[in-house]
């Protein structure tokens, strides 16, 4: 599929989701189960993206110390957990990976 068409359809889907209940005037309430399920979607989707990004840097599972992304991510998780600060989390993670890459590139 053409990337512009894909983008347009993705935009239409997103808009329809946002318009959904506003358009049908909230007559029907969301069932409690659906509400709970929808609340779980963001952590599930975002973690499903993070795990392969961090643990499979070369499309293969890598739990070794040589996987800098894993080390940096563990540090980032700790920072995010303790501080809840988005910018600080990203900064610490990036600094860690730059530092580790820098050490590697030394002769």
């Amino acid at each position, binding site marked *: 599929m053409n990337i512009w068409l894909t983008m347009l359809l993705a935009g239409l889907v997103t808009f329809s989701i946002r*318009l959904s209940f506003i358009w049908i005037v909230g007559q029907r309430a969301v069932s409690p189960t659906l509400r709970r399920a929808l609340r779980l979607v963001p*952590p599930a989707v975002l973690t499903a993206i*993070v795990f392969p990004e961090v643990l499979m840097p070369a499309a293969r599972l890598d739990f070794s110390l040589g996987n800098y992304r894993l080390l940096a991510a563990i540090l*980032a998780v700790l920072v995010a957990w303790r501080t809840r600060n988005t910018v600080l989390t990203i900064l610490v993670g990036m600094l860690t990976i730059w530092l580790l890459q820098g050490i590697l590139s030394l002769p």
Partner: protein
Amino acid sequence: MKSITQVKNKRMRPRCSLPPRWSVPPLIAEFFRGVRAELPILVGVAPFGMIFGVLALEAGLLPIQAQSMSWIVFAGSSQIVFSQLVHLGAPGWVIVLTVGVVNLRHALYSASLAPYLQRLRPAWKWLLSYLLTDEAYAVAVVNYQRSPEPAVLAANEQRIPSAPDLRHWYFLGAGLALWSCWQLSTAAGVFLGAVIPQSWSLDFTLALTFIALVVPNLTDRPTLVAALCAGGAALLAFSAPYKLGLIIAALVGVLAGLLVEAKA
């Protein structure tokens, strides 16, 4: 009857006492109150928009495509996922489906605001739905729950013109402030992405951004289980056909979270 008149008088008095040359049209004032309420949130949104711009270019999108996505799709996390899937070579229908799943949570916001927007004209409903992001919702819903409900008065006694409900102007101000920030920060990211070399590993900001978004919200067992199961399933389903692994993993995570919640 008497009480309605009293409320009406109370409402009218301050506005009448203002000399005309000092009065800002109330809907403009309401609009800018919304803009002001959104400003602190923009501090966090701007870096996110820049990260999207950088990642979109690294994934192989053209600058014009990255910039356009920010107003066509206009939903942060899902735009990053979109670029990621383009990079992995996923087919279009999988990308559309995945974006839909990532944005499903907006149905909750839609349901929560629907009662307040009931009386607006269709054009307003469409416009505000387009602007219904996480960040605009957070600001608008607080305003709706806090300020009084003139619409109820009007419904009780239709012949008495009560103070008009202007809270949709507040919502519009918050939504447009966020929209502008998102477009500008995407542009900044697209510019940076073209300048910064690949060796800086900027694609790692994707994982870091999502870690920063998720970890502070892992406050109860169902959420934690949903996240961990989805992560594990994503590793197992990584080579699933059509790059459907992400959707499969999300479903596994949500089901696991619901099961834990049902047991508790």
